[in-house]
């Protein structure tokens, strides 16, 4: 496998249509993980305004929260976090060797629950945004 031979369409991600549950779970988990760590860095950066005093902090947070985009991103972040948590739980079970036969079902369940939670949270997140 020293080098994968350049076969155009044969390359990995050109094949996404044929990926199975476990593969999608892996990709989503990776993606959400990266988003979360990215967010963690940003988050701390934003919160750092606290060091420069209360008005700065309140202004920054308030200002950000006033933006519709930020609100929407927050819903996204919640979805990402929820999926990462749910799939993380799924993975922990896999690590324990529990329920491996249902690994695809538990992935679909994670997706559905994530979707449901994200939608349910929209009102909360958007209050006061308009």
């Amino acid at each position: 496998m020293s080098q994968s031979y350049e076969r155009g369409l044969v390359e990995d991600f050109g094949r996404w249509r044929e990926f199975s549950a476990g593969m999608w779970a892996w990709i989503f988990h990776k993606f959400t993980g990266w988003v979360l760590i990215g967010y963690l860095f940003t988050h701390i950066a934003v919160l750092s305004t606290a060091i420069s005093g209360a008005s700065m902090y309140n202004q920054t947070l308030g200002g950000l929260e006033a933006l519709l985009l930020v609100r929407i991103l927050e819903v996204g972040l919640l979805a990402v976090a929820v999926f990462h948590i749910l799939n993380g739980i799924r993975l922990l079970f896999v690590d324990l060797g529990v329920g491996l036969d249902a690994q695809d079902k538990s992935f679909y369940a994670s997706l559905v629950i994530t979707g449901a939670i994200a939608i349910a949270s929209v009102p909360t997140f958007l209050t006061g945004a308009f």
Partner: protein
Amino acid sequence: MAERYSSFDRRGWRWFAQRVTAAFLIVVLAFHFMLLHFVNHAYEITLAGTTARMSQVGYFTTMVLFLVTATFHGVNGVYNALVNQGLDGTQKKAVAAVLVAASVLLVVQGIRVALAMNGMDVSF
């Protein structure tokens, strides 16, 4: 095959730590989200409120632990992902160094912020 030099050379600990931190994070992350978006709405947050929460020792330590574990968990996850893609040799060492540096910065800055939120003057 690589010889085993000492028990510290065992590669499993990071894998294991990733799971342990994950288990911890499930709880804390969920708690964090609930508290700051559903109980207290994010748009209502002010430093005063934050300081009030942060002055509780339990909450404060939880948040610092949250920071440390999340950093480890996230950065270790990223590092793993890169090794999985075949990162090796000096490149791997360089990436590891950068990631460790970034984590240290993040944790240090995070703690400064936390202290500031606790009303301490950290602007040195």
